[in-house]
Each structure stands twice: as C-alpha cells, then as structure tokens.
C-alpha cells in the first residue's frame, strides 16, 4: 500500500475558505421533519473553542448513503456560493463554531442509522477527529455496547425538546467528559 499524505492542522485562517452559506442547513427548506442538532465544542480547560470547524455526514431519510451534489451550489452569474437548492438532500454539512464555541446543524433524521458522523477540525489540532452523534441510545449498537457507561454517554445527544438535540464535543478531559473519538485504522 502507498504511504498516506500526513495530516496538518486546519490552522486559524480557514474561515474565508471552507465555511459556506447555509453550511449547516442540510434539511431542505421548510421540511416539516427537520431536526436541530446543536452544542458547544470545549477544550481541556472546559473553555469553548471559537475556531473549530465541524463536518457532518449522514444517511438520507430513506437510509441511502449516496448523498447528492450541490452543498456548495454556485450562482452561475456571480460565482457566489448560494448553497443547496432547497430540494435535494446532500447529506453533508459544514459548520464553524461561533465566537462562543457554539454550532447549529439543521438536518433530517438519518434513516436506518442512529447517528450522524462528525469530523472535527481546529487550530491546535494536528489531525482531525472523527466521532458519531447518536440521536438515540440504541442497545444493539456495536460501538455503544463496547463502551463503559460514562464513555458511552459522551456519544449520545440529549433530546432537549421535540426535534431539538444537544450534542457537545469535548476535545480533552477526564473519561466521563472527553468525547469518544474513533480510529478507523
């Protein structure tokens, strides 16, 4: 196998390059089934991280894993990013944290899957981190079943109210605080 290209940090200045208009609005406009997933990203001192970039990838509501192009759809006249067309479900979201370390994703519940895949980038992080935001605590789930209760809890979003989920990410902390991150080998 060919050796891979090593990772390097996303650094502090990706802000005018990677985020795009409506990056967190994955649910088609006005869809009655839309859910909100939101939360904070924290560092090892419990401080919110204002310069993290989160990416989300998930199955469509029908369980498909094919996604659709058009997350970064462009205006053909000006070239400006105008975002998704409001009809197709691209399955992909990209959200930078705000100055207070907060992010918001509006999407549809993943079909045939209890979680949304998450990839975390940040200044200070030399190699991105993968995790899963579980919307339901599924007893049959292989990964959840393999974890100690206090670790498992870091992967399960809290349902704050109907269709609104809270999923915080802590990059560093004790085993009951630090989010479980995944190594796919």
């Amino acid at each position, binding site marked *: 196998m060919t050796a891979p290209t*090593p990772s390097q940090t996303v650094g502090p200045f990706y802000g005018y390059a990677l985020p795009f208009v409506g990056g967190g609005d994955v649910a088609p406009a006005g869809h009655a089934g839309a859910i909100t997933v939101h939360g904070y990203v924290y560092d090892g001192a419990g401080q919110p991280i204002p310069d993290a970039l989160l990416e989300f990838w998930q199955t469509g509501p029908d369980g498909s894993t094919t996604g659709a192009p058009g997350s970064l759809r462009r205006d053909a006249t000006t070239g400006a990013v105008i975002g998704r067309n409001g009809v197709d479900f691209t399955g992909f979201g990209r959200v930078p944290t705000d100055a207070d370390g907060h992010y918001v994703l509006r999407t549809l519940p993943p079909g045939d899957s209890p979680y949304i895949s998450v990839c975390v980038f940040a200044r200070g992080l030399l190699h*991105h981190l993968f995790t899963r935001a579980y919307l339901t605590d599924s007893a049959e789930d292989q990964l959840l079943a393999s974890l100690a209760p206090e670790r498992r809890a870091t992967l399960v979003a809290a349902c704050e109210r109907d269709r609104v989920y809270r999923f915080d990410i802590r990059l560093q902390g004790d085993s009951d605080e630090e989010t479980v991150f995944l190594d796919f*080998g």
Partner: protein
Amino acid sequence: MTASIERAPAVPAPEAQADIDREMAELKRAAAGKPALLHPARDYAPYRSSALRYPKNPLVVVRDPEAVELSGPVFGVTDTTELDSDLTRQHQGEPLGERITVAGRVLDRQGRPVRGQLVEIWQANASGRYAHLRDQHPAPLDPNFTGVGRCLTDDEGRYQFTTIKPGAYPWRNHLNAWRPAHIHFSLFGTAFTQRLVTQMYFPNDPLFAFDPIYQSITDDKARERLIATYNHDLSSPEWSLGYRWDIVLDGPSATWMEEGR
C-alpha cells in the same frame, strides 16, 4: 468604571526558538526507536496550541466502519466554477508575486485515482498575509488576491491550480516563530473516513527545521511527503513555474473493503 489597580498577572516571557528546537529534537529522538508514525501525534507539545486540544483517552478503534462512514459527501458541476481553480483571476487586476501552477493527483492507498472529488485550497498572499480579519501581520494585503481555490478531480484523479507563491509569515508559538511557505489543502475521498486537511510546502525552505507544525511529523519520509516537487515540464514559458504534488488519502473506503483488507 474605576480603573483596576490590581496588578495584571505576570505574562511569561515568550519562549525562545532554542527551547522549541530542544523539545523537537527530543521528540524526534524518542520517535526514532518506534514504528514510524504516518501522521503527527496530536499531543505534539512544541506546537503550543495543541496543549488543551488533543484527546487524552485512547481513540476507540472501529474495525468495521459502517456503510455511511465508508461512503462520503459528493460534489458536482454546480459546486465549482471554472474560475475557482485560477486564484490569479478572481479580481480586476493581477496579484503581486510569483505565478505558479500546482498540479497532481489524489489517490487512495492502493494507488487508485479519487475521481470527481472536491479539492479546496487557501493560502497567504506573496507577502505572507491572509485575507482574514484576524491576521494582523503587518504585511500588505493584495486587493487582487484572496487566496481561495476549489476544483474537482478529473477521471485520473488530477487537480490543477494557478496561483501565486505564498510568503512565509510570523506567528506567536514562540519568539521569532515563522511558518515556512505553504498552501492549505482540504480533500475528500470516496469515504468520509478518508477525509484529509493538510498543508503543501515548497522544496528547500530554510524554515522547515524551525517549524513545530511541520516537524510534528517526526518521521523524515512521512514529513517529506508534504513537499511539492519543482517540475520544469509543468512550468509554462514566460508565464508560471510548476510544482507537482500527489496526495494519498488514508483510511478505509468501501472499494477497499470489498477487495478485502
């Protein structure tokens, strides 16, 4: 409001390059006796911003990623415009600096091309300044250069950008810290697990030895994979200098799993 009469907390003097150099040398020695790491360790202390941003608990190994993780976002003709890959034509005038062509292929670990996938780049201008509000380096902004590019790979996995060579720039990791010239790259594979964000460097940069971000990759061979090669055939007469850089994405993908690991 009354002015505070409390003493401000003592601000530690910035560390010297020699302190960082010593730590980097120690970590390189420690790594030499072990199997080579293909990526930087997230807890690489000489890069000071890492201190509170790396997980202390071991990552959980997922031997059988699920179908959703072995697939990934897709992009198409609506997601890029032709102008996106030429960073020298995004404004009314020509940017200052040395015009370059950066081209290469995006491959998986089996050497197969990653087709039709999104490649995104961003970089400082020729003076080493980003068009970012928070970059306060007192080097001139260039009204004709933003420093953002995108393209989709072709059927052979090829990408190509026209841009200008970025300048080195200072940062505050320690006293007199300077980043070697680099272009930030963001890449997608066919699987979300293959996602990569990295930086491309230029050959023979005198700042390599002093930079804890570059040196966070402790294996010499792995580190050198981030350096583009000057390629004279890619240079255009009376127009631009050519650099070639191929990218190999790590991580399992559905096609890789099908063929057995």
